[in-house]
């Protein structure tokens, strides 16, 4: 049947068809469809759909639901009640095993539940848009890229709007980053220039103002409630003028990046107020300004002109609202058509194989692209976490399977009796599955408590300050949890159920040992070994990554980072600030630079020696003042520092030793005085001196130091580096702050210690260590729980044998050894298999890792040792107990 637009939503309809009694189903469905059509006409599609779902839910009641089972005249409820009763009794009777099963499953399930919560958390984004099913974002892509770009060329929105499948388009240009002032009050804001269609596409509602006209006039601005309250207090902001000073603060992913000198953009009229805090969206902003403002700013040379630039797809976001009934294919066709039509305009080096793809709004939350509008977890991170959770879950299920099969004998008589009295194999399978699902549901309650403990530590991860996981409990989550428990119960129980239900009744009743013994010893050993191999792999990997983390922390960067405070200039004049800060006692030296080395930001230029025919070569650029090398302890090995003369200093550069080597010069001194031409600038640069190599890129991004140059360029300065000599750092900093406030009362004094800033670049690794460490802990814990179960069972079974041996004169030690031997063998096999595996797999990824730590046998040995000790402790806890028991007690036991 074709899905016509006025048919009811498919999901509830399918649900209805699934549960309804087939004898009356078609008639009721007909009624529902008829009603739905009438409702569409009277109250609209959305409400009609909602009412339809509600009707279906309320139809889910006895009398409508299809009768269970094959024949409706037999009463099965007594049978199921018996299954539950026996299930509960078994759980209560064998407390140790029940504890091992329930606790193991609970540990594993809590991790899966956390991942479910993360997914649910991401899916609440952008649900409030009324037309969300028709909204698409345009992604850009070029040949050989690793990921799509969330941004697209600026003229795209207008070109796309001409296609019939498209109802409206809007571009969002994130160029607003600066200070808004009104009546002596100033607030830093960030936001987008956008088209009037913004409000017809998205469902952000205005607290005040008219959405239809708010963004049509030039110099109109819609502000957030927060900005409104800060600037206007109780006044009505509509119609008031905000004076905006642009400082090129990066937006939307601003962070702490520094700002440029201020430019006055004039007055903007407030035309609307949005309460942004009401909405969970991937779009966040303080203000929206009308895109019709752009021409006048471009004419005044305050903004770059990208209006007709089809090559530059790194800045502007394009959103499209499709006509009803149109699909993403229609949009994709339109985009392909534009790429074809604009081929000549687009052609450039960085646009080879350029194409654009639609991304549905619902896919934005989990589909992180380059240049995206907020920090989110990329999809592969979810796969990675889900993979870890699955391994743990499988391990816990294995425990259940293992223990159930091992303890098959305890159930043999029951199975025999049931079969004799007429139970089919099918019934027994259902019975054992009922038991395993019951166990899983009990685990769920414990898992929930564990989850409550897990949530705060997850939220406390360093990376969450960017990801903003809130992890609220929403009703549908609980449904997911229960489903998870049921699925886990079935997976854990299916093999034992099939195995146990296959017993021949005569054998099961006659002799316990004939029924297949304690069953499948080899299989159980294989399962146990695989658990420990996985655990060993996790332990080794965690230790390795922790070592890598420590290695980075202790890395020699080639410059000194202690006691240096970096203060963002925030548009202030360097010389003025320097003069002020120099008066603070405890300050030893002050320098300036444009980016902080080794913290993730890099600039590049391309150079070649003047007159050479070779290609231009890329070199890193750092803009500094004369004091910078001395301040950070970067040594000059040849030549001199920048000249004291401003004009000649501007054309001088300092280069690093790698550059000397790369250019093939015999010594550093030989390069001094060489002239370079740059690819994009016309001025010639002269090498004034050569400095020792130091790290200016992230350790994670670059293995060996690449060539770089230092330029004297005061116009680019963004940070002041203040070296503090006084032992009381905090006191000096508070003095620095008071001096800052005298010069700039508006912007808050910000600072960061250089060593801490560098440390923070590796906090992400520590998060990985935390997560993997926790997973290893779970893996080993669950594997040990399984081992505990097996040893307990064996020890119990052999109690009598132990008694007889002791009676005949065996000592405690030999008995402990006898009981433990099989399990110790298992552990040793696990190490023999697991150690090389962990070594090779880890070496494989580590090889591609820049500045890697040495990964020796030591790491694997440490991991194996941890495994062996924990395993041996687990085994001996049971075997020693049994071997120490009194002979009389063991013989009396039945």
């Amino acid at each position, binding site marked *: *049947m074709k899905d*016509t637009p006025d*048919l009811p939503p498919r999901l509830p309809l399918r649900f209805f068809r699934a549960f309804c009694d087939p004898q*009356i189903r*078609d*008639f*009721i*469905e*007909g*009624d*529902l*469809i*008829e*009603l739905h*059509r009438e409702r569409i006409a009277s109250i609209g599609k959305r409400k009609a759909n909602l009412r339809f779902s509600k*009707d279906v839910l*309320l*139809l*889910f*009641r*006895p*009398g*409508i639901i299809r009768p269970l089972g094959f024949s409706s005249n037999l009463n099965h409820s007594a049978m199921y009640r018996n299954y539950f009763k026996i299930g509960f009794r078994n759980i209560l009777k064998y407390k140790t095993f029940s504890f091992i099963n329930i606790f193991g499953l609970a540990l594993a399930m809590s991790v899966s539940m956390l991942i479910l919560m993360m997914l649910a958390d991401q899916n609440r984004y952008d649900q409030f848009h009324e037309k969300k099913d028709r909204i698409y974002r345009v992604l850009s892509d070029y040949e050989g890229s690793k990921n799509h770009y969330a941004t697209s060329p600026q003229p795209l929105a207008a070109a796309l709007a001409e296609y019939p499948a498209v109802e409206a388009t809007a571009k969002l240009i994130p160029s607003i980053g600066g200070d808004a002032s009104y009546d002596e009050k100033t607030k830093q804001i960030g936001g987008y220039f956008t088209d009037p269609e913004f409000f017809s596409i998205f469902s952000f509602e205005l607290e005040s103002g008219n959405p239809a006209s708010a963004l049509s006039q030039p110099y109109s601005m819609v502000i957030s409630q927060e900005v409104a309250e800060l600037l206007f207090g109780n006044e009505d902001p509509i119609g008031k003028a905000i004076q905006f000073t642009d400082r090129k603060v990066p937006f939307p992913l601003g962070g702490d990046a520094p700002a440029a000198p201020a430019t006055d953009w004039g007055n903007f009229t407030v035309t609307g107020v949005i309460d942004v805090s009401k909405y969970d969206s991937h779009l966040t902003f303080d203000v929206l300004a009308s895109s019709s403002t752009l021409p006048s700013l471009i004419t005044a040379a305050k903004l770059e002109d990208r209006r007709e630039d089809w090559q530059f797809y790194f800045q502007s976001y394009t959103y499209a609202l499709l006509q009803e009934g149109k699909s993403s294919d229609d949009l994709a066709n339109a985009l392909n058509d534009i790429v074809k039509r604009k081929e000549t305009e687009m052609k450039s080096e960085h646009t080879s194989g350029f194409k654009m793809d639609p991304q549905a709004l619902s896919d934005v939350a989990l589909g992180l692209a380059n240049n995206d509008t907020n920090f989110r977890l990329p999809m592969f991170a979810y796969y990675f976490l889900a993979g870890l959770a699955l391994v743990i879950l499988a391990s816990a299920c294995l425990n259940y399977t293992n223990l159930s099969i091992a303890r098959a004998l305890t159930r043999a008589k029951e199975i025999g009796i049931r079969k004799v009295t007429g139970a089919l194999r099918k019934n027994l399978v259902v019975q054992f599955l009922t038991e395993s699902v019951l166990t899983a549901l009990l685990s769920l309650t414990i898992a929930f408590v564990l989850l409550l403990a897990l949530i705060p530590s997850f939220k406390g991860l360093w990376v969450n300050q960017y990801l903003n996981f809130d992890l609220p409990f929403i009703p549908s989550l609980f449904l997911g949890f229960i489903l998870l428990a049921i699925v886990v119960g079935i997976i854990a129980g299916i093999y034992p159920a099939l195995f146990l239900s296959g017993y021949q009744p005569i054998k099961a009743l006659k002799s316990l040992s004939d029924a297949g013994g304690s069953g499948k010893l080899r299989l159980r050993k294989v399962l146990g070994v695989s658990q420990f191999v996985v655990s060993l792999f996790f332990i080794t990997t965690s230790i390795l990554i922790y070592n890598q983390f420590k290695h980075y922390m202790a890395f020699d960067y080639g410059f000194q980072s202690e006691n240096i405070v970096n203060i963002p200039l925030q548009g202030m004049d360097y010389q003025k600030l320097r003069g002020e800060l120099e008066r603070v006692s405890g300050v030893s030296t002050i320098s300036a630079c444009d980016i902080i080395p080794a913290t993730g930001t890099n600039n590049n230029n391309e150079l070649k020696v003047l007159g050479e025919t070779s290609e231009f070569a890329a070199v890193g650029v750092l803009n500094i003042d004369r004091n910078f090398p001395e301040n950070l302890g970067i040594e000059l090995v040849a030549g001199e520092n920048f000249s004291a003369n401003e004009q000649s200093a501007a054309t001088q550069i300092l280069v690093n030793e790698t550059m000397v080597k790369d250019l093939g010069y015999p010594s550093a001194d030989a390069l001094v005085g060489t002239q370079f031409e740059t690819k994009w600038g016309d001025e010639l640069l002269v090498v004034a001196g050569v400095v020792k190599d130091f790290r200016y890129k992230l350790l994670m991004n670059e293995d060996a130091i690449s060539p770089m140059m230092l330029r004297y360029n005061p116009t680019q300065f963004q940070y002041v580096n203040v070296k503090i000599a006084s032992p009381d750092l905090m006191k000096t900093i508070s003095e620095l702050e008071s001096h800052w406030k005298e010069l700039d009362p508006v912007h808050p004094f910000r600072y960061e210690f250089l060593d801490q800033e560098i440390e923070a670049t590796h906090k992400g690794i520590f998060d990985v260590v935390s997560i993997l460490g926790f997973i290893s802990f779970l893996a080993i814990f669950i594997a040990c729980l399984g081992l505990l179960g097996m040893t307990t069972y064996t020890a119990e079974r052999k109690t009598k044998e132990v008694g007889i041996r002791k009676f005949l004169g065996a000592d405690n030690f030999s008995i402990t050894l006898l009981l433990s031997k099989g399990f110790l063998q298992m552990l040793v096999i696990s190490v023999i298999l697991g150690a090389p595996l962990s070594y090779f797999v880890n070496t494989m990824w580590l090889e591609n890792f820049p500045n890697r730590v040495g990964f020796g046998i030591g790491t694997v040995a440490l991991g194996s040792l941890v495994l062996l000790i924990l395993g041996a402790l687990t085994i001996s806890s049971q075997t020693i107990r049994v071997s120490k028991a009194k002979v009389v007690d063991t013989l009396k036991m039945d």
Partner: protein
Amino acid sequence: MGMKEFQLGEFEELVLLTVGILYQEAYGVAIKKEMEQRLTRGVRVGALQTALQRLEKKGYLKSSDEAGTQERAGRPKRFYHLNMARARWNMHAKPGKYFGRQYRTWSGI
């Protein structure tokens, strides 16, 4: 079999009466609309269908089916009719609460 087999709840009685009023036209949507109009309150499809199933089981109603139409996307209609012997019996045995008051349906028959 005791009295339980014949007893009617208030809502069931209303449904029964409405089926009587609609005579040849008593199918799900029509019954729902008629009741909503007379009661001036909403009637849930679930409640209505459950009541219809029960009434048919108890023997108060009979049903006949008719092929689907376009507006029902091809789904068939089930029409309900009063099983007169049974209904009359009930009328004498147990006059409903709504009889002759808010719900003027007996006069409709």
